[in-house]
């Protein structure tokens, strides 16, 4: 197992190198002047574009340019984001924790509910529980997130005043920007607790509820249906029939035999889902005024803020590669044939 994980880890930089090559190749569709503009922070500098081209070697052969660009990446120099008004690396550091926090809060319930009810739907096929989960899946999948988000806001904020938009309320805003508040992780739920601010923690948690519920409802559908269909496939196989014929109890058949085999596609989907959420949930963040990486990414794309888009893409690609690694490792745990073969 250790050998398997080590192999995968060694392969990781190669994959990332491939990703940078693809990104760099995409960048070549822009003219040298357009690429030089990526390094410009003020419109006035457009006059000295030639100097910028020379400074960054944008008129040099492609492999040389790639080498220079890669060196910059290694130094963490991803350029300057006009949208965020700060270097791209700083912008990622600044926006990512909010998205990460939201993702964590949403992902665990998605995984738990999706797998649990997916399995139950398969076991109780065409019974009321299956019908209910089908209803949840279909409505969740077909309901645009902005509609669900707005409806939730109207009811739980507009009517009941329970869960406001944004990341925190006015009092907490003052607290987290005060000199006495220490930012340990950037995750406000964690930081408020570490600062011993219980009421601030409750406030931050309240602000996470609606965007998390929106994400859970929208993203749950796919996992629920995939788990169900995967389980149904396993439950119809010969070895399950044999187990039943041997007189094994139903719960053992489901938990010990069918579920383990049905988990492979679930693991794949879950990792993709996690990366999807981490890369930014644009509409949810916009509707709930949640300052995450998705909202920044879309604003950057709208404004042709190429360094920001490249940075966000690189981050998404890196996360995807990592998620793939994790899912590969999980496959090996779920199905030993994978690590042996």
């Amino acid at each position, binding site marked *: 197992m250790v050998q398997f994980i080590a192999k995968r880890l060694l392969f990781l930089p190669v994959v990332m190198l491939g990703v940078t090559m693809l990104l760099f190749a995409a960048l070549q569709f822009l*003219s040298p*002047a*357009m690429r*030089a*503009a990526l390094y*410009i*922070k*003020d*419109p*006035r*500098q*457009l006059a000295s*574009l030639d100097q910028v081209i020379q400074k960054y070697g944008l008129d040099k052969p492609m492999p040389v340019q790639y080498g220079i660009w890669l060196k910059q990446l290694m130094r963490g120099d991803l350029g300057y984001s*006009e*949208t*965020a*008004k*700060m270097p791209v690396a700083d*912008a990622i550091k*600044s*926006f990512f924790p909010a998205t990460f926090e939201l993702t964590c809060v949403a992902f665990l319930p998605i995984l738990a509910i999706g797998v649990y009810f997916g399995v139950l739907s398969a076991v109780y096929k065409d019974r009321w529980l299956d019908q209910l989960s089908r209803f949840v899946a279909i409505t969740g999948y077909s309901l645009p997130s902005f*509609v669900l988000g*707005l*409806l939730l*806001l*109207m*009811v739980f*904020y*507009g*009517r*009941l*005043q329970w869960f*406001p*938009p944004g990341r925190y*309320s*006015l009092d907490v*805003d*003052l607290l987290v*920007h005060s000199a006495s508040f220490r930012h340990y992780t950037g995750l406000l739920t964690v930081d408020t607790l570490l600062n011993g601010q219980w009421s601030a923690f409750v406030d931050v948690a309240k602000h996470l509820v609606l965007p998390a519920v929106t994400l859970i409802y929208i993203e749950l559908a796919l996992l629920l249906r995939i788990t169900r269909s995967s389980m149904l496939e396993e439950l119809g196989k010969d070895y399950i029939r044999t187990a039943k014929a041997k007189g094994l109890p139903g719960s053992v058949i489901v938990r010990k035999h069918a579920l383990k085999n049905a988990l492979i596609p679930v693991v794949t989907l879950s990792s993709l889902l996690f990366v999807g959420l981490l890369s930014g949930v644009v509409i949810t963040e*916009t*509707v*709930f*005024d949640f*300052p995450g990486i998705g909202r*920044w990414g879309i*604003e950057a794309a*709208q*404004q*042709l*803020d190429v360094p920001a888009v490249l940075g966000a893409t690189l981050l998404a690609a890196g996360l995807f590669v990592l998620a793939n690694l994790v899912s590969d490792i999980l496959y090996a745990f779920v199905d030993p044939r994978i690590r042996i073969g």
Partner: protein
Amino acid sequence: MTRLLLAALLAAGPSLAAAAETVKNPESFTEITISDADSMDPAWAYDTASDMAILNIYETLFMFDGASTEKLVPLLATKVPSHANGLISADGRVYTIPIRNGVRFQDGTPMTPDDVRYSIIRFMLYDRDAGPSSLLLQPLLGYTSTRDDKGRIKPRCYQDAARAVRVRGNDLILTLPKPFAPLLTILAMWAPVVSRKWAAGHGAWDGSGKTWEKFNNPEKQSSPFFERANGTGPFRLQRWDRRTMEIVLSRNERYWRKPARLARVIVKGINEFSTRKLMLAAGDADSIFADASQYDQVRGLPGVQITTGLPTVELNPVVFFTYHVNPIANPNIRSAELDGRGIPPDFFADPDVRKGFAYAFDYQGYIRDVMRGMGLQSTGCVPSSLPGHNPNQRTYTFDLKKSEEHFRKAMGGQVWKKGFEFTLAYNSGNVERETVAQILKRYVESLNPKFRVDVRPIEWPEFLDDYISSKLPIFIMAWQADYPDPHNFAFPLLDSQGSYPVAQKFADPRIDKLIDSAITETEMSRRKKLYYKIQELEYEDVPHLLIVDPVVFRTQRDWVRGWVNNPVLPDAPYGSYYYPVYKAAPVKKG
């Protein structure tokens, strides 16, 4: 789906009414808008979002008296100069302005007449491209730029400025090359007082004649004033978070007048209207930006007060054509050639192209359906609230046949034959401007399948950067008066040195000459005739499309007190001068 959402909102009604009974965050005022500020530097800022924050942090010599756009009251001065009190010389060229004692900057240092002098000179000599410096350069030095046509610095600017702005004892003495009627109203809005010592200590210009050129037309973020502030005003800049588009102002406890009643003002940008509306309804926002197209959605919200029919001194929106687009690293003009996949940089220099666009906009439909009838079609650059407005001026009408005729003639028939593609930009979150863009796109594209207009939203600060560097072939903006005078519309919109024509690369020497005559003309009837001629040439040149002369409304919680609409103040009626504002529970009727 809209019905469903509205139904849900109606269902939310009763509890929103409950929210109206108590004042939420009574010492804080939260304004939710759509734009982030561009800079906190008073010499740089020339946009409403920035100027609104600056208005509350810094102070000018005079201010408008409440809602008046004419009557001034002293602020950092102790008297408003006039011929009657002898503080304006008989020939109208020398102004003596007594400066108030006992005023301190927010860092605790006293304000002196030398700070006032420094601030006015810095405001002029800073002179960034398409910035506000010309507002004082023109009356005080007699020219509108510190640089010549080739961008070279004029060598004697500092000496001219030092001669025009002097200190004698506790008085500031301004000496003009020739009379300039709106000078005091300009000083009521511009060149707020900054601390010379603080500026020099933080790396800004030290006020010396030897170093000023280094600070002329600088990069935006190079100024220490860009994101820090030290004014004399009722509020301090506590935080400007460009990541979340949030400005937090806190009360200046050492303010020379009685401190403000609000302890804190938060101005936050949220582009999603539904979120803004819900925050207003829940009382988490005290005032929100809502335009005419959103009027029906905020009307009748419990606890929300709508004040309608507010006069404006503005033209909004205005569609500007850039005659010579900056082609360097500019994806907005695609191939940069007339090959059907882009436009050449001088595409809009062709009058037939501009007229083609002018006839392809449904002005009346826009005013009726989008503006909910809140305004009339603009007849020229001088709005109806100012002298010089000509209600009988010829205007463009919606006429697709004429539009097609002009497009067929444009660029020797090549435009019609080859087609075009470019980006039409507006600032994110502004629904009215987005609608204007979509209407133009729809009708222009309907004329010829080879015509393609891509509508794109851009965040406000980037939008400003792009238009200033002439990178936007068409851009939609507005003009709100810097001071209430027709010159302040004719000059920035039509003079070759005005902020928009500079970015558009538009110049008509006939118009320049008429504007120059109009500002020195003291007889109003003759002045009016000159502005009529200017607006006729504006119609012929069509450097921009003037759409509507609007009336506006303000949306705020009914617990807001003390707000006064002065249409001249930045971002009115959405933005505010927060000093007199406070919150108190609404008095129940019956």
